[in-house]
């Protein structure tokens, strides 16, 4: 079976010419469907750049990126938008909810851009809010919720459109330890349900929760190991 994510010789160079910065230096990475993968690295290691590439927020300077059969490296802006909408669910460190929309409206957003009709949209959004245990908070605005709850709304938003890949960028970075545990628990459940999860973090403790750990240093993959303690 074709892997879900296939990255070959991916490079990203900022400021080409003088003061070149090689943020990614010939990265090779293959992710199968259903994997729970942590990408770990210190700030400046290139992990954020890799996450932007994997999330189709940016295109590499050179190299190949195949996501679920599509050649992302050659795509234009609009095609990238469509791919992000269809293939990827984002969970950000800062939650990134839209402040003047309710929880339900936030979860509905990717479904609107997918062009799903109002009724189906609502059902899907309510279902995914129920999955993260927020069925009673649907009409609340982000400012009326705790950090943990906001991140759960963000997770509901990420899974609402049922994308094959969930990309979580430091999802617990802004949360207390209790909420962090909760969020990681949800991610694990999602993995058990068959979702492919890529977790980006600088924290070894968080990375240890994943089944496979990829360590990035200076734009290169330093190690790529299966977590023996994964449960």
């Amino acid at each position, binding site marked *: 079976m074709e892997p879900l994510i296939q990255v070959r010789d991916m490079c990203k160079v900022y400021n080409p010419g003088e003061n070149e910065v090689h943020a990614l230096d010939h990265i090779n990475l293959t992710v199968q469907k259903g994997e729970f993968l942590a990408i770990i690295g210190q700030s400046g290691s290139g992990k954020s750049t890799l996450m932007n590439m994997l999330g189709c*927020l940016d295109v590499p300077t050179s190299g190949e990126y195949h996501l679920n059969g599509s050649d992302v490296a050659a795509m234009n802006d*609009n095609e990238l938008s*469509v791919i*992000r909408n269809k293939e990827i669910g984002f969970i950000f460190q800062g939650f990134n909810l*839209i402040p003047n929309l309710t929880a339900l409206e936030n979860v509905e957003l990717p479904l609107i*851009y997918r062009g799903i009709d109002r009724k189906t949209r609502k059902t899907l959004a309510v279902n995914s809010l129920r999955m993260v245990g927020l069925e009673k908070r649907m009409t609340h605005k982000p400012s009326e919720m705790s950090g943990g709850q906001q991140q759960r709304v963000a997770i509901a*938003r990420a899974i609402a459109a049922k994308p094959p890949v969930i990309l979580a960028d430091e999802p617990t970075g802004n949360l207390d330890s209790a909420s962090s545990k909760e969020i990681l628990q949800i991610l694990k459940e999602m993995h058990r349900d068959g979702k492919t999860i890529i977790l980006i973090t600088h924290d070894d403790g968080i990375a240890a929760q994943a089944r496979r750990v990829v360590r990035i240093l200076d734009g290169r993959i330093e190690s790529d190991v299966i977590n023996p303690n994964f449960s």
Partner: protein
Amino acid sequence: MSNFIEYVKMAIHNIMANKGRSFLTMLGIIIGIASVIMIMSVGQGTTNQMNEEIDSAGAGQIQVMCSNDAMNAGEYITPEDMDALMDQIPGVEAVAPGSGWTGTTATGKGDFSISLTGATETQPLFSTTQIKRGHYFNAQDVEEARKVCVISDKDAKRLFGSDDVVGMDIDVEYNNISKSFTIVGVTQQPENGTFVTYTYEGMPVYIDVPYTALQEYDDSYNEFYYIVVLADREMDSSAVSDQVVKVLDARHQSAGEDYFQVQSFQDIMATLNTMMGAITGFISFVAGISLLVGGIGVMNIMLVSVTERTREIGIRKSLGAKTSSIMAQFLAESAILTVLGGFIGILLGLAGAYGICTILSSSQGMDLSPGFSIPMVLGATLFSCAVGIFFGIYPARKAARLSPIEALRRN
């Protein structure tokens, strides 16, 4: 495209979430549209009123003048010419000689200047004035140059303190000659109009007398450099004008000499309407500038909004919003703001026009009502919509072209 409705909904949502700012943004458009509508409808109302008054005072009238060349050659319009015009041109209902002058009279109420209009028995056809007492002088009075006159009830009251004056005499002095005219009829002075039939304090007393009776003051009574022809109101007065010139040229053997010049009432109306249109147009143009400023205000606020919502735009893009989706959302926002502003502006403008007309009517004794036309309102709506879209494009493009990474990075 069903998604378009979603973008409009997002726009409305955002406008409602920032009510105060949205209103301030609209204010420029509201003021701009309101002033244009107000000026246009007051202008239209004034034009309508003027046309109506002029129409009742002079529809169908054609003024005929002798040119300088004609007068130098000793050619004037004679009473016989006037008869010929009546007889030979179908549609000519009456011809009035342009003769008259202002003399003085003294009564028990004081000294007055008195303006005599040399007329024929057909004079009442020229206006809608009604006879109140007695009758207008007849053809025989004109033929025999009887010294009779017709006066308005208002002027009669000024001279004698009563309008029951049929049979009384008025002594008129002019050219050091004093003659006495017997009043045979009293007309009803029409209600004050605003522009044309306007009266004022101290204006002379007007009386109509048979033009032949003026002979005793001045020999030139049977030569006129100016007459007025009354054509059937239903007829094309420029066609009648052409025939008038033809008949006069034939009688004076002056074809090609340009002796007789005509100006039909239609020409005057057209000139007047063009003038009013130009004035209204110019003021509207000035008001339109404020609309432009309003549009720039919308652009300015939308630009601020784009900067403020950079992060939101980044989130939307990361969730799959295309450049066109963001563009549509922001364009919809500025279009809704301006159209809504335009709508409020139209209502305020019409209310303002109504207010101005009411105030002018009551304080200046005018009779004005605002003119209102569907094309005007439609035009204003379309224009404000165009302003919104035009001034919305730049901010919307700026928003839509943000790179999602850049946008997400910003706080």
